[in-house]
């Protein structure tokens, strides 16, 4: 685990073509400084996995606007202020994989937990399950869903310690703890880094094993 001096350092090695998991639900938990640094860093042809597809003209929307994202995997791209995504999508310049929010979370959890695939009750009989394997188990129909893995996860957390343990704040917790388990390299933007021992071991949400870099921003 490394405490980075800058967001730029923290995202320096993201490669073209990478799958990037981006935390946040709307702006809560969104790692804006890391996304800004990724824009500066220049990686392109990215697949972004995030609940939404950008708001306004900053953060994720700015990354999209610069043409760096080939594909978005998300549950809810369409929002009042998602004009950047909307435009790219209508022009056929970005690919969308629409995933129910619970499947998005559970598929990343599966990746992090070593689960090869799972039978899921969500989406049965809907267009989002079309072409997917189904099975009746104990009288209920399920759809087989596959893990979603990231090369990199960019997440927002509240506090870290120098070992990389993380705690979150209120509903900004959202996707951070799940994404932290599902990517090869995990980078957390936090408001504060405490000495080791500064976080209550009973209250740590993301244990240090999952975190590769933290940066204060």
């Amino acid at each position: 685990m490394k405490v980075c001096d800058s967001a730029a350092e923290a995202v320096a090695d993201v490669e073209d073509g990478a799958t990037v998991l981006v935390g946040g639900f709307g702006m809560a938990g969104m790692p804006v400084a890391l996304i800004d640094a990724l824009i500066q860093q220049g990686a392109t042809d990215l697949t972004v996995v995030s609940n939404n597809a950008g708001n306004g003209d900053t953060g994720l929307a700015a990354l999209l606007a610069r043409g760096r994202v080939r594909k978005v995997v998300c549950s809810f791209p369409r929002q009042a202020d998602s004009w950047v995504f909307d435009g790219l999508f209508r022009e056929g310049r970005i690919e969308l994989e629409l995933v129910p929010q619970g499947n998005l979370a559970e598929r990343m959890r599966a990746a992090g937990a070593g689960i090869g695939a799972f039978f899921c009750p969500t989406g049965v009989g809907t267009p989002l399950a079309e072409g997917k394997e189904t099975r009746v188990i104990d009288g209920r129909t399920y759809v087989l869903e596959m893990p979603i893995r990231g090369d990199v996860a960019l997440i927002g957390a509240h506090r870290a310690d120098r070992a990389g343990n993380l705690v979150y704040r209120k509903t900004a917790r959202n996707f951070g703890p799940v994404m932290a388990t599902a990517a090869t390299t995990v980078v957390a933007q936090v408001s504060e880094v405490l000495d080791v021992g500064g976080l209550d071991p009973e209250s740590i949400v993301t244990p240090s094993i999952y975190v590769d870099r933290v940066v204060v921003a």
Partner: protein
Amino acid sequence: MISDTSGPRTPRTRHEIAAAIARDIPAGSFVNLGIGQPTLVADHLAPGSGIVLHTENGMLGMGPAAHGDEIDPDLTNAGKIPVTELAGAAYFHQADSFAMMRGGHLDVCVLGAFQVSQHGDLANWDTGAPGSIPGVGGAMDLAIGAKQVFVMMTLFAKDGTPKLVPSCTYPLTGLACVSRVYTDVATFEVGDRGARLVEVFGTTRDELTTRLGLDLG
């Protein structure tokens, strides 16, 4: 079962629908109120009912909308509106939040709808209109997760077409998942045996039977 269909002479307002739903939620229930109109139900829950609100972005014990100094960007509901925290609240991440939902632990969820079929199929995420950008969020998870799914909607679209239908024509959210439909002009039970009219407001059973083209039980 209430089967009085000679009800009040005028349709219900949104607040009257919300109040009716609130009355039908048992004390002590754990409830998720969908984005949009269903959030109005919260205003009509009886004080002391012990009903606990879940928001799928990661919280139980959600309080009313936040105003002024209460607004905290890290504390929002699923519609990304700032909310407050009640005593006894708990936060959890997205995989845990949707496990709670999909595992059948919520007693009731209240959702809006484009269409509900007489057998309880739900369509509430995509009109399938050309050029529309679909967004599903947690709708498919909510539809199949709660023990009871109530729908809150107007019975007719702006162009007068019924939204309670023999079979949904819009893309489905979930199969056979809705148990009750609360509308401006009537309340229905739906399910295996088709739709059953519970109450009317400013209309009659005959008029509804004709306009909906359904056997109303």
